């Protein structure tokens, strides 16, 4: 019998979950729900697989299908334990990224990229501070590629030889990244804001840290973080959910996993350093300003994004005034409210980064006193609403959207409307909480020629 369960009702849309009967009885232990948002014309099949894995399937009439199989594990997770463990484990920096590289190696030593390529699938992977993701896109042979993906991520093969080989390749990657001024800007800003938080660690680690990685450590991290309940599989495209579940049933391991506990971080609300300045081969100074918010929670991301867009976005008085005065160019601002850290960053190019920073501090103070201009608040909501609606136009951004929502326990389908429901007072309260001088830091990369 079908059961309709309205879990939430909003002004313009009904979001409901209903149980879906299984077609062939295989899903007896899989919990399958259809989640939809009629207003924006989007729906998704959410499966809580018997292995513990959460699967999102968005059926779209696109030529290409996209799948991400990812885990809540990134460069941030260097100190951890299972709820059943007594002691915390501390692992080398860069190990999550190293593990990602090694997952492409199969038991006979060949590169799984070849298996994807053989059937016309374009595979890739990435690691960030809070996640590791394995993905592919293709227009044919989707189910074969899905089998390859699931087998690859559930079958680790770490040996002394292949770890040694990867240390060479990742060593080159570390060097390449070090040449990027944007990389220096970002990590120096993290170091300026955070004293302890591992977000300030380079995702790939360092030549020294990766040299300490062993097969045993890789297996240890894999066993902790690649448990199915810590992972999600997000798929978008012209696909059949029954075939997907069938493949998941066939391949995914069923094993109990304990709760993962991250090491405690002693991080105060103030920035660790006010300014970090380095010199590199750049044409003119680059800067990035950070606003640290240790009291922030991922659930506050929506309101914080509105605040950032209203006060520091491309159409904000802050940016347009600096641009008209020729103090900045190539500007952007963003908000990061995730598990590892909550902060806002804005930056660009400027001949006088310190002057921009002073302007920023004065402007922030003024906005706290005056309040966020109402028209800017309304415009920001429109901008962000449209941004989310753009994400429903490709199988890649839909899959990424579901994965991102999984990581923060959010709902991708209601994200656009969440912006509409944020109250003006909420945003002003946030402004008062975070826009304080002691939360601000500046990172700059100046041209080598300016070095005295």
């Amino acid at each position, binding site marked *: 019998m079908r059961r309709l369960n309205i879990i939430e009702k909003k002004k313009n849309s009904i979001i409901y979950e209903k149980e879906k009967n299984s077609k062939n009885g295989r899903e007896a232990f899989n919990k399958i729900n259809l989640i939809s948002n009629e207003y924006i*014309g989007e729906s998704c099949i959410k499966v809580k697989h018997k292995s513990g894995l959460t699967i999102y399937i968005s059926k779209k009439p696109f030529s290409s299908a996209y799948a991400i199989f990812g885990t809540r594990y990134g460069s941030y997770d260097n100190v951890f334990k299972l709820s059943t463990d007594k002691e915390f484990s501390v692992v080398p920096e860069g190990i999550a990224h190293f593990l990602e590289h090694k997952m492409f190696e199969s038991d006979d030593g060949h590169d799984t990229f070849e298996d994807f390529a053989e059937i016309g699938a374009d595979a890739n992977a990435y690691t960030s501070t809070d996640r590791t993701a394995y993905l592919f896109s293709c227009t044919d042979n989707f189910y074969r590629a899905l089998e390859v993906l699931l087998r690859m991520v559930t079958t680790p093969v770490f040996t002394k030889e292949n770890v040694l080989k990867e240390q060479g390749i990742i060593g080159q990657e570390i060097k390449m990244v070090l040449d990027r001024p944007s990389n220096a800007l970002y990590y120096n800003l993290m170091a300026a804001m955070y004293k302890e938080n591992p977000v300030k660690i380079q995702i790939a680690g360092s030549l020294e840290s990766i040299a300490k990685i062993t097969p045993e450590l890789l297996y240890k991290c894999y066993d902790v973080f690649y448990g199915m309940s810590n992972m999600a599989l997000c798929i978008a495209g012209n696909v059949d959910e029954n075939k997907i579940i069938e493949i998941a049933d066939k391949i995914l391991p069923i094993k109990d996993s304990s709760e993962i506990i991250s090491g405690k971080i002693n991080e105060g609300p103030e920035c660790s350093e006010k300014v970090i300045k380095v010199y590199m081969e750049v044409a003119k100074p680059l800067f990035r300003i950070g606003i640290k918010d240790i009291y922030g929670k991922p659930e506050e991301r929506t309101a914080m994004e509105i605040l950032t867009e209203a006060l520091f976005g491309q159409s904000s008085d802050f940016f347009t005034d600096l641009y008209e005065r020729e103090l900045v160019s190539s500007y952007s601002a963003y908000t990061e409210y995730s598990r590892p850290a909550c902060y806002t960053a804005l930056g660009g190019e400027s001949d006088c980064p310190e002057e921009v920073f002073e302007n920023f501090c004065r402007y922030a103070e003024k906005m706290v006193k005056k309040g966020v201009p109402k028209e800017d608040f309304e415009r920001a909501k429109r901008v962000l609403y449209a941004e989310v609606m753009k994400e429903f136009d490709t199988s890649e951004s839909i899959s990424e959207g579901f994965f991102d929502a999984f990581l923060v326990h959010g709902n991708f389908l209601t994200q656009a409307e969440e912006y509409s429901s944020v109250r003006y007072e909420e945003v002003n309260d946030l402004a008062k909480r975070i826009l304080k001088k002691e939360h601000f830091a500046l990172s700059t990369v100046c041209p080598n020629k300016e070095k005295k």
Partner: protein
Amino acid sequence: MKIENRALGIGATLGVIKTDKFKNNYFALNFLLPLNDENIAKCNVLSSVLLRGTSKHPSVSSMSKHIGMLYDPSFEVSATKTSSSLVFKIGAYYLENDFLPKEEKMDVFSEITAFMFEILKEPFLGNGEFSSFYTESEKKHQIDKIKAKINNKDSYALSRANTLMLGNIPAACESLGTEEEVNAITPGSLYKMLVYILQKCPLEAVFAGRFTVKTEETVLKFISALLNGRKEEDLIPVADCIKPSFDGKVKDIKEDICATQGRMVMGFSMPDTGEKTANTEVFNEIFGGSAVSRLFTNVRERLQLCYYCASAQNLSLNVMYVRSGINRDKVDIAKEEIMRQLDLLKNPQNISESELSAAKLGIVSNYNAICDSVVRYASWYINRRISGKHTDVERCIEEINKVSAEDVSEIANGAALTITYFLNCIEG
């Protein structure tokens, strides 16, 4: 999704890609200009000055606030170099009315075309020319952008190799223009450029998305008003692509930079296959175009000489570049391996059936995926139109599927190294 082409009066064509798969539509006007340093510099500065203000919205602040209120269409005014022409574009990727919040009654597309008209026909002027403050300010920003090319070592190395390899043909122009040309711009010369574009340059317009009767009316009315006063005899012809010629000598150039890792670019001349580019596309995929290519699996994975080693081709100019981020002490061995892999492909027996099939599948998959994005499809269509190629995706796929190992080897046999450029890292 088939593309409908229609002529729209003097020197203008509209391509329409009808689809209701997406929540956003794309509309762009592409004016085609001769490719030279002066036009590149002027069009780049012009595109920025036009976004500084209009008669109704006279500042960056009022312009960007207006764009935000239109549900933030990805609004673009730009100048882009292709192999044969310079493309001056104004375009928007915008939210379809059906997906606006329920209480919203705006017709976004009408607002966007009205704003485009305002930008092109009613810019912020003083004494019949652009504001000198805005012009000087954007000249400064443009010079900053030219200088900032050094910030990205990978693209900087490629750009240097490209300029050094192609010699004096138009396609060798710097994509952002030169400082000298930017400095020579005046508010008056910039305004003349805008008038020249609207009166004399061929226009390729493209719409992709939900093309309703109302949308069609809006497009036609807008373009007709925009091109009002054009004369057939004033139109400039679309330039042919001038291809580089090589004398058989190999240039070996090294330049120093403060960096942690060196960047090597090897430039090759490739056989001229005319419009039949499928053989070259498959060759590139096998040689260095994917994560299972010969270069990736041998130079990076087996020999661990670098983090990346990949090839890319320019099908209009018949050239190919192999790029890698590499340490100084490994340059010679990497060069040797890259050439060895090229030599192996000269014999069709060295290309397995599975390798060929995987390469073709990968390319076909990319072609199929073009139709999954209105922006991507529209851009692909415009690039094909500009380079005089057919715009039928299905036909491209058929051509790829016909390629044999012998065809791939023929391309490999025709490849000749013309330049090795190395951006050498020195300590800062």
